[in-house]
């Protein structure tokens, strides 16, 4: 694979973009303490594709995700979910966008301890005041294998089960795109692999779009495409990655870090 020194790799696959960043820039702080987290990043996340974002600490991978998902304001450029320019939305519309079009999976599960598993799964719909699509929810629950545990509260579930609830919650609203932030970071390898399997299945079988930030090369192999970030820029891209190819690419960051 070729490493691009700067700028975005051009998308060649014929698919519709579920989300797109164009010259996306994010700057923290001002004056001397100014830090450029994202430096004019352009990238497309195509529908029904599972993309992993990788990079060393401080490369801006989480920031990219947060900006795309409307969790953080951008400093310049554009971030679109479908046809909607995220940066143009006020808080209320942005909240609705996240609620209706985006699914989230967090490293720390972030379930409400007072709600049962099922209530947690349907929470986004409850917030919207919509009736959940029962068939779809049943199927999602079936897919993630939680059928027998819907009445349990989060503290009665294992970490892997909790994260599966979180996956189901993200899927339940049929989002246009799902963002997962280190979804396996708090899980043992077996539970982690399960969760990643569900994410992949949701892409392959349900046609979902998933963007996952991870620093685990094994996790990244579940994705169809890996984007590498360094110093706020996209530096490389891999399709159909293997653990070996990802690891190799990551090692080059380390080497570069040491030599420069």
């Amino acid at each position: 694979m070729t490493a691009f020194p700067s700028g975005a790799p051009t998308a060649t696959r014929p698919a519709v973009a579920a989300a797109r960043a164009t010259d996306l820039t994010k700057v923290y702080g001002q004056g001397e303490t100014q830090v450029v987290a994202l430096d004019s990043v352009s990238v497309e996340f195509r529908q029904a594709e599972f993309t992993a974002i990788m990079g060393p600490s401080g490369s801006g991978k989480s920031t990219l995700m947060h900006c795309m998902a409307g969790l953080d304001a951008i400093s310049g450029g554009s971030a679109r979910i479908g046809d909607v320019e995220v940066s143009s939305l006020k808080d209320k519309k942005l909240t609705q966008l996240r609620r209706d079009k985006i699914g989230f999976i967090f490293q720390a599960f972030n379930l409400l301890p007072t709600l049962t598993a099922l209530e947690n799964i349907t929470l986004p719909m409850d917030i919207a005041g919509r009736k959940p699509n029962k068939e779809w929810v049943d199927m999602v629950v079936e897919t993630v294998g939680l059928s027998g545990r819907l009445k349990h509260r989060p503290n009665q579930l294992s970490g892997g089960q909790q994260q599966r609830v979180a996956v189901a919650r993200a899927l339940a609203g049929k989002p246009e795109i799902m963002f997962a932030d280190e979804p396996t970071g708090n899980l043992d390898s077996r539970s982690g692999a399960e969760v990643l399997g569900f994410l992949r299945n949701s892409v392959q079988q349900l046609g979902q779009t998933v963007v996952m930030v991870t620093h685990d090369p094994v996790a990244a192999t579940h994705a169809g495409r890996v984007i590498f970030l360094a110093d706020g820029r996209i530096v490389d891209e891999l399709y159909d990655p293997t653990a070996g190819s990802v690891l190799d690419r990551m090692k080059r960051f380390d080497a570069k870090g040491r030599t420069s």
Partner: protein
Amino acid sequence: MFRTALRNVLAHKARLLMTVLAVLLGVAFVSGTLVFTDTISKAYQKSSEKGFDTVDVAVRPHDKNDDATPGDPPRLSQRLLDRVSAVPGAGTVTGTVAGYTAVADKDGDLLGNGFSSTGGNYYPAKNGKDPRYDLGSGRAPVTAAEVALDSRTADRGDYRVGDTVRLSTDGPVRQKKVVGIFTTDDGNVAAGGTLTLFDNATAQKLFTGSGQYDQIDIRAAAGTSQATLKAGVDKLLPARAEAVTGKKLADDQAKDIKAGMSGLQTGLLVFAGIALFVSIFIIANTFTMLVAQRTRELALMRAVGASRRQVTRSVLIEATVVGSVAAVTGLLAGIGLGAALRSLLGVTGSTVPDGPLIVSSTTVLAALVVGVVVTVLAAWLPGRRAAKIPPIAAMSSVHTAPSGRGLVVRNTIGAILAGGGVALVLAGTGMSSGDAKAPMGLGAGALVIGVFVLTPLLSRPMIAASAPVLRVFGIAGKLARQNAVRNPRRTAATASALMIGLTLITGLTVIAGSVQKSIDEMAAGSLRSDYVVSLGAIGATGLSPDVEKTLKRTDGVTATSTQRTSPALVDGDTTALTGVDGDTIGQMISVDFSSGSLSEVTGNNIVVDDDTAQDNNWHAGSKVPVTFEDGARKQFTVAGVYEGNSLLDGIVIDSAVLSAHMADVTDNKVMVKTEDGPNQATKDALQKALGDNPAINVQDKKDISNDIAKAITLLLNMLYGLLAMAVIVAVLGVINTLAMSVFERSREIGMLRAIGLDRKGIKRMVRLESLVISLFGAVLGLCLGAFFGWAAGELIAPSLPTYELVMPWGRLGLFLVLAAGVGMLAAVWPARRASKLNMLAAIKSE
């Protein structure tokens, strides 16, 4: 360690502010109460202080505990005064005369709010001046047409020397010319009362009778001691009089005032205690939260080698610093509060004397001790808990969830206390009011503490009951309900603080409402007359019989009946005889007779109430020997027995017969029946007929009810004001709890925001949680208060025959609405904070 503690205090300003506020309010309340009581008692003391500097020995009428003659001991004669003046060592001798004198302002309204409307005599000594008064302008009154006014009254009424003033002593209006304006050290005047001076003869005619005095003040000549002078005077005294030294007068007065004020002071301190009690809970709750919030920090200190004792000490030092700051600011706030209470009383038009604000050293000391000691005590338990935090807690990321353990023991204790309390209160309602006080008080205390202990248990079912209502608010309502019971202890402590305030407020409202209704019933229930005419103000004595004559002549009046009383000896006991017009009284008052009727009250026939009849074993036809005030004896026949009520009881006699034996013939009141019944036109006509008199009240049934309502409402409002403090402290508790909840759940809130709950939804969630907690406390308080109100009513009922429980549903509803308002208000800041939370930081925070 001290430095760490101090840094901690300063590092968290918002947290610090909340704690300081909780302590501050508690201290402010205690010191405010003390300042208020001191100020009021000092003012009352001043108001009853007569300048004793000018009195070395005073002679006054005195009864030596014998029942030989009914009525008051006779006044002092001019002859006695003359003889006393001749005692060796006697200097200036002043005879004093005093009585009720209402002064009208230029619009015809009563001056001085009726607090104290007095009149007196100007008694010129040898030099032509009365030592008690200093005439600033004009001269002393010398004829019956002249008066002098005190300078404050003159100012308020805008009267100057030469003006004509309208005043009244016993009913009829008199027009007098102001010839002098004086200043005096008379406490009544300093306290805002009015004082009108007449020339000696006129004052005697008005108040004491010609040639008679209320008291004789003697100044000792140089070189004569008070004791010597008293010994000299003692020899001259008639049987029913005594001589007292000026020193003793002053001492007695000080004692009386102290006794009079102690009740008020105790009452106010009880409220201060309540506020303090609530404060302790809030402070303890706050420190518990502070410690919980700092678990990791404290564990880290333990991990790097701090001992348990050092951790506890650091919490206690923090408490001391907070307590000291709060105590000082609380004291200042309390002084302001005392001043505010004082002026509030003035605004409500109540009749309290004026005076400067008193801040005694006791107040300062109490404030400081309360602030520091209470805070340290309240922080002690959380401090110990802090010490028990294992060092490993520094490494774990999750806030320790509250354990459900320990609640079993807690619930058992609570159930026993509450059950025992209810049993004691119920047992108390069955006893006589004297015996019941102890079990009732004990039971009430046990019940409140029991419910207090049980609130965590009660919170679940009671808050679950709110689910149907909260469902309207969708997911925010559901989350709010669940959040409210997540930490039952904290919710309980928060709600309990509110509960205490509302228990007292509700209990008082129930009692006051019921008592008001029953007094109203007593005062006006059996009244049939259209109007009752009486002297309105404090200190007023009898109405002149002229008033009735005037009323009789007034157009539209169909009948009048007076009621006058005079002491008499009946069967060896002094008792009051009530004189009425047998012909007309039946139209004015409804009375139930078991035999006879009111119309039989003529000549030698009397009627008596059932209690008196029973005590003396009288019945219709019994002969009753009576010794009148003037010593005359006469035999009467019981013509009827009636059921006594507040308008008429005791021995009722023909007023014409009674008047013949009365020293001063005056009426307590005149009841009037008119052609058209009570209406404004008739009332105006009656008032006009009486000369638009400032001293006289013309009241119909509704006016009487309103008067009673006004008095009770004033009292109730004062109590509400005092209890409001407890509620404000409770509100702080709610704010604290919510702030803590928001802090603890910031990650959840961040997640909710991320997956699509908008700011409004978050705000609503926090507000509803606040609402649920507040209403939970309020409902508990309302229930307890209503129960106590009922129980206290059971005690009152035997002494108030017309008592019946009145549940002020409207008020109770209002309290619930207010509690809801309190909840919303308390949630403003925490809700805003929650909605402004940075999502990313919240989600990432570990």
